[in-house]
């Protein structure tokens, strides 16, 4: 499958993300001749252990992520970052987790927005919102390069594209920029050939970044 990079919006220190930025980013994609193709949506759920005795020091992970991706609607992905594990399974595995009653799904976040075609690239710009509210938590952008599946072979063209994109966006003087934090895929047992498991690991990394920056903002405020 074609490889993609998942980027996230990094607000400048002292600023927060807002829907105006999301609108400007979308306009910018259209400004560089991105053709709007339709909507996309991915769902991310945090699973946390149910412990009988909270006082007992848990040998269990604090949490792990479950994710459904639009590119593989019949599949579900678990990412356990602390152990560098990503598992691909059928959607019915959610039902198994529910029956086991050992981990409870806590926060669900939705990534949704529009998809654009731009030559050999497919772009998806989306907001990050909790499932039961419209509170904007972040902005993500997927850059997919359709002709290639190798991460290494596509690296240069991806970097060049991102450079052009950042330049186009910089003209709008927005209070922040997109960053790309590439996980060490080999630590998760993933090869250079791109799969949806790579996507799941990238989203888990984006979430870790989002949480870290949210914590940094609240530390500054306090």
């Amino acid at each position, binding site marked *: 499958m074609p490889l993609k990079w998942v980027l996230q919006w990094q607000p400048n220190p002292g600023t927060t993300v807002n829907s105006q930025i999301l609108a400007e980013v979308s306009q910018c994609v259209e400004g560089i001749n991105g053709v709007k193709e339709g909507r996309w949506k991915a769902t991310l759920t945090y699973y946390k*252990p*149910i*412990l*009988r*005795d909270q006082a*007992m020091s*848990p*040998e*269990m*992970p604090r949490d*792990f992520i479950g994710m459904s991706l639009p590119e593989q609607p019949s599949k*579900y992905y*678990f990412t*356990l970052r602390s*152990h560098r*594990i*990503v*598992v*691909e*399974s*059928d*959607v*019915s*595995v959610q*039902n*198994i987790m529910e*029956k*086991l*009653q*050992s*981990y409870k799904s806590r926060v669900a976040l939705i990534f949704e927005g529009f998809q654009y075609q731009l030559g050999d690239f497919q772009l998806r710009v989306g907001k990050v919102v909790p499932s039961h509210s419209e509170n904007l938590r972040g902005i993500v952008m997927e850059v997919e390069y359709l002709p290639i599946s190798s991460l290494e072979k596509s690296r240069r063209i991806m970097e060049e594209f991102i450079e052009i994109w950042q330049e186009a966006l910089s003209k709008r003087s927005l209070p922040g920029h997109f960053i790309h934090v590439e996980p060490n895929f080999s630590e998760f*047992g993933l090869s250079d050939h791109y799969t949806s*498991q790579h996507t799941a690991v990238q989203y888990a990394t984006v979430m870790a970044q989002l949480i870290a920056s949210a914590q940094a903002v609240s530390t500054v405020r306090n």
Partner: protein
Amino acid sequence: MECVVQGIIETQHVEALEILLQGLCGVQKERLRIHELCLKSSPNLGAVSSEVQILCDLAQPEPSWTVRHVGGSMRGTGAEQISVLVRPMVESKASKNVLRFFYALGYKLDHELLRVGFAFHFQRGVQITVTVSSVNKMLKLHATDEAVPVTPGMQLVEVTAPATSENYTEVVAAVTSFCEHLAPLLHLSKPGISTGVVPTAAAAAASLMSDGGGTTL
């Protein structure tokens, strides 16, 4: 949900059973070699203790993995009156690191088995699967190549069919009616209620072997 019945047969009659099943199902048998790992939750994990099965299908050129959860069987007078066990069952295919994932979540290996035999999958109003297998235990952890039979000379026969809360009575009827065809060779009942081998097995097997399953039993 699934409907399930089990029975046992002496290994010497398995060939006859295979001929009979071949005639009844009209499909080719599939080779069965499944490594079954049963995991239990750590003492402190979960509202209640839980069990999950991780199955590795070794009959495929590339082993494939499945996670399975089997719930408590249906209870009440209705359930008692039927001869088939109806229980919740959920399965999901998974990537090969699923065992490592469940270990990381706090599940521990309780026991492991190797099932070796064959299976028939066919339609008889509903989707039915018959598996005939010898159940083996491992003397060393994960040593599937050195597995030894738990009950030498005996094989386990299992008839299962997926069901829903809407159609299970229909599925139970289909499974019950199918089991009647096997009655001369073996008796099938709810798991845990062993009825042993049937006295007619040897004669029925001899008859099947002599005419290749052409005779209606």
